[in-house]
């Protein structure tokens, strides 16, 4: 059991039977008054953020999440199908629960699926992933009129901004925390 004074960024707690992660936290205590813990919490299933203020003495049940190694198989409508690497059992996660992770899923990719009370609620990605550019405009050397970045479509369908020297068919590294181009991969 956690108490309000354990609250900090990244702590996972259960509120109304659902797992939440603390995304922002501020301690305040007006003169001679009680300690208040103002938080922003993200629902780990729906992705929605709520503001809550807790007081000294409030308690929380920790949200314990299980991670299981799985492989992404395919997407059908808004449903993403995964297979457990050990049991070969197949599960479905819907698009809303995946959040930004859906931008990086390509067939046969190995990921850690997060389970809350045996229900799959999302996937844990590495901080950096490598994906191939399948579509982008060709850069004309010496053309300075163009911006520093141009759009590129990745094999997962994700569109992001890349430097002008990146060409179709190249493999690039993306920072999954920001969704931004990180570097070109030398093959």
């Amino acid at each position, binding site marked *: 059991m956690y108490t309000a004074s354990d609250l900090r960024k990244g702590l996972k707690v259960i509120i109304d039977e659902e797992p939440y992660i603390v995304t922002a936290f501020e301690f305040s205590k007006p003169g*001679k008054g009680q300690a208040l813990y103002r938080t922003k919490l993200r629902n780990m299933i729906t992705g929605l953020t709520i503001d809550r203020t807790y007081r000294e003495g409030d308690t929380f049940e920790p949200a314990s999440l299980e991670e299981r190694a799985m492989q992404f198989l395919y997407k059908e409508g808004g449903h993403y199908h995964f297979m457990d690497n050990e049991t070969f059992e197949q599960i479905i996660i819907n698009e809303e629960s995946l959040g930004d992770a859906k931008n990086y899923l390509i067939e046969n990719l190995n990921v850690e699926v997060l389970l809350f009370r045996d229900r799959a609620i999302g996937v844990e990605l590495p901080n950096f992933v490598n994906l191939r550019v399948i579509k982008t405009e060709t850069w004309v050397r010496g053309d300075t009129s163009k911006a520093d970045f141009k759009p590129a479509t990745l094999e997962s369908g994700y569109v992001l901004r890349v430097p002008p020297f990146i060409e179709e068919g190249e493999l690039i590294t993306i920072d999954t925390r920001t969704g931004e181009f990180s570097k070109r991969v030398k093959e």
Partner: protein
Amino acid sequence: MAKNWPLARRKKALQQRASILQEIRQFFIEKGYLEVETPHRIPTPAPEFHIDAIPSGPWFLHTSPELCMKRLMASGYEKIFQICRCWRERERGSQHLPEFTLLEWYRTGGDYHSLMEECEGLIRFVARAIGLGQKIIFRDREIDLSKPWQEISVKEAFRFYTKISITEALEQNLFDEIMVQEIEPNLGVEIPTFIYDYPAERGALARLKQEDPSVAERFELYIGGLELANGFSELVDSEEQRRRFHLENENRQSSGKSIYSMPDKFLAELDNMPPSAGIALGVDRLAMVFWDAKTIDEVVAFTPEEL
């Protein structure tokens, strides 16, 4: 080992902090105050519902020098000040450190209103002496120290800034939340502001107002929404003080907190204390205002996490 850059970068802020401390001393010496030092480690803190002391062996680190300084006042010391470290358990945030520096001063012959005036004089004096002038920038706003400072009662603040009355807020245990979320951000944003006359239960060691005993003669100073000081006309009736300490302890007990033993020596001497007023000012917070710091971490050499 590489140089500790965060610490090296804080040098200018720490130099200003040192000047602030020197000028505070200068101000009180010029006004005829005696600087005192009382023990940091004491047998029992003043029982207050929301203030928790850190144990030190069978004793405690003081949460403020209040009890010892009042014993000095009760023994004929008429104007005293102290700058010292204080400790409060589990208080850590962008404006809180569990170990912090407090300036506390007491004087006879005067009530909380005369202390507001003196506090105003002190902060103007320090600002000028450290070369800041009378207009300072804090939290993206220009704050004019030279204009007369604003005074607003807690009752008025509730009327201006919230939809709920004080009575309702107290009944629903929302008083602190409303103070923090709706009132504090409006206080002292153009000129420093004193908010005064707190509900009686929010001033365990303060005198009640004669004309209206539902409030205590207590005030807080805010600059740019940041709480800097807490002062009051002192309660000098030992029987009443003992009753209030018991009440605070009952509240502590019913919320599962440890209770503190009665500070008997303080209570035995309290009746000798002449009518006085006293105030505590957070020195780290004052350094934050003058440095335009976003967090308290910027104005101390080390935070607990850096040790």
